[in-house]
């Protein structure tokens, strides 16, 4: 059992708790850097996809996990980021300015939308964002000069300082590009969370009334969180567009919004780990099911091919069990396992018991 001895106030907000913690993340980063040499091009593509979904998950995590505002419409902001990036690059912009522009545009649109929308709370917010996600599908068709209408846009080649970093031209470079972006955003996210602004987001999540009493400008905190969240999701959308190479109105259906929310829930709301765990599940689950299906087919002769949509159903079943038995998601399980290991002989069963809660109406707040 490790005992941490805190000797200064900084110990509470340091990015890494101690050397051991730093070493763990260093090893993880090293593993991510050498991955292109170890994996085949197919699995490298899958890993890139995990990175991009983790980035999108981080965006949603900021507003849903850390500010407590449920958004069912983040695919809309992925779409805005993707179309901005591609449209600018097709007009001759370089990759990086276009990427920054896509984050800015999504962030600004997010901020404009946030003000009226965030006056609602709870379920109404989820519905309003859901509507947004549906509206954007048709807007993507109607705004043909920018989005290419029904046929959509094709991603141009990414050139970085004379090096091609394309999905198909050089998958390893594209992977590093995504990795670098994700590491940067994660560090910025961590820093945000330990700043007063980030703390005010957490306060708004835990209790709006108390946050207001402590002097937090709730409307401003929510708007800022929503805007930042949209900006991060916009970045993810731009990278996603380069991953799949072609986007149109069908690339960002409302189902993507729902999947994204399920992703952060399955990973664990309110934790940065959660966004990553969720992305791994979302990307790897279809692979796992395909492998299981082949195995069943070859060794037992059970054919599952007659049931389309199997992977969505399994995904839904996992969500169902997760919400009922482990509301903190995979991160919750991770914490339990870690605590069990750290306290080895001393772990008690009731340590993580949920307290009993009773629902009160939201109609009279």
């Amino acid at each position, binding site marked *: 059992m490790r005992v941490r001895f805190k000797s200064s106030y900084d110990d509470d907000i340091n990015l890494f708790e101690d050397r051991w913690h730093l070493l763990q993340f260093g090893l993880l980063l090293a593993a991510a850097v050498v991955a292109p040499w170890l994996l085949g091009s197919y699995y490298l593509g899958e890993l890139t996809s995990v990175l991009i979904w983790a980035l999108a998950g981080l965006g949603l995590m900021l507003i849903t996990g850390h500010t407590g505002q*449920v958004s069912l419409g983040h695919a809309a902001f992925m779409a805005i980021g993707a179309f901005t990036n591609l449209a600018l690059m097709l007009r001759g912009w370089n990759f990086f300015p276009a990427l920054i522009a896509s984050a800015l545009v999504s962030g600004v649109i997010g901020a404009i939308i946030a003000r*009226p*929308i965030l*006056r*609602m709370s*709870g*379920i*109404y917010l*989820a*519905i*309003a964002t*859901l*509507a*947004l996600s*549906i*509206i954007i*599908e*048709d*807007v993507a*068709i*109607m705004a043909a000069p920018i989005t290419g209408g029904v046929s959509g846009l094709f991603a141009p080649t990414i050139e970085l300082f004379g090096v091609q970093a394309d999905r198909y031209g050089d998958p390893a470079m594209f992977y590093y590009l995504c990795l670098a972006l994700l590491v940067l955003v994660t560090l910025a996210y961590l820093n945000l969370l330990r700043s007063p602004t980030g703390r005010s987001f957490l306060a708004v999540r835990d209790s709006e*009334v108390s946050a*207001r*009493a402590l002097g937090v400008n709730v409307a401003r905190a929510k708007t800022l969180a929503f805007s930042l969240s949209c900006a991060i999701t916009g970045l993810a959308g731009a990278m996603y567009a380069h991953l799949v190479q072609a986007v149109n109105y069908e690339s960002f259906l*409302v*189902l993507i919004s*729902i999947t994204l*929310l*399920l992703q952060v*829930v399955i990973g664990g709301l309110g934790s940065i780990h959660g966004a990553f765990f969720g992305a791994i599940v979302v990307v790897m689950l279809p692979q796992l099911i395909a492998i299981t299906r082949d195995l069943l087919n070859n060794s037992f002769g059970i054919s599952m091919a007659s*049931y*389309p*949509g*199997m992977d*969505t*159903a399994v*995904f*839904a*079943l996992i*969500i*169902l069990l997760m*919400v*009922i*038995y482990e*509301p903190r998601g995979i991160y919750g399980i991770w914490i339990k396992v870690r605590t069990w290991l750290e306290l080895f002989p001393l772990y008690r069963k009731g340590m993580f018991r949920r307290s*009993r*809660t*009773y*629902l*009160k*109406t*939201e*109609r*009279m*707040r």
Partner: protein
Amino acid sequence: MDILQLLVSGIANGCIYGLLALGFVLIYKASEAVNFAQGDMLMLGAFLGIAFINTGNADLPFLIGLTLSALVMGIFGYLLDRFVLRGIFGQPQFAMVILTIALGFLIRFAAGAIWGHDPVSLQTPFAGRTLELGSLIVPVVDAVIILATVALTTTLYFFFAHTRLGVAMQASSQNQMAAYYMGIPVKRVNSIVWALSGVVAAIAGVLFAAKGAVEPSVGLLFGIKAFAAAVIGGLGSLPGALAGGLLVGIVEPFAARYLPAGSSQIAPYVLMLLVLILRPGGLFAQISQKKV
């Protein structure tokens, strides 16, 4: 005359949205939860109706098939709450949203595995028949839908306002613990509400199938649209749900007719966003803000 004809078909469509919205409102009124699987329950009810009524299936008379379908869906709703949703009893609303979304996926998958993915429609005794009121031509299906909706809404309204069970339902949504203290079996009341909403979904589903074809994925978008209707009316108000449903139903054909292409798809949602921004809480709002 043209406008009147559009209006009638809009009202009939709106009634189905309204019926589905009633299902949302029932559950919201009684447990302050939102059931994102309501559209999929409608789809399930419709398929059950088809299984009971169509020739080549069970071949029962329309009314008996409708009753059976409503009964099965009622039991389904009760068991769903008893064995699945009770696991998160008392947890925040958000958990329920996620849980019902997942349930919707599962119901869709099950329906697809049982009935396949081809659209099917219901055979009804009044298919293809029309009523002529002056120069206005009303399909009998539309008239049946409108009458059924009005009857159901009125019944439910009086049920909530004037029966012991209805009042108990409202109490348990406002404050679960206080309802417990007053001797209301909150958990059982919840299950009954889910059964009731299953019945409403089945009726809406059968009427929907009488008007057009159903396939397993019809629930998602239809559910969201009905949801928009419930929100426009103000979640938690039964007449509001009907009003919202009618508004959505009427706006759609008119937008398709008089506005540029594509706008009829988004018109209901734009309408909902406008209502939410101008009057958060819907037209028949029940929210009051506490000042700090």
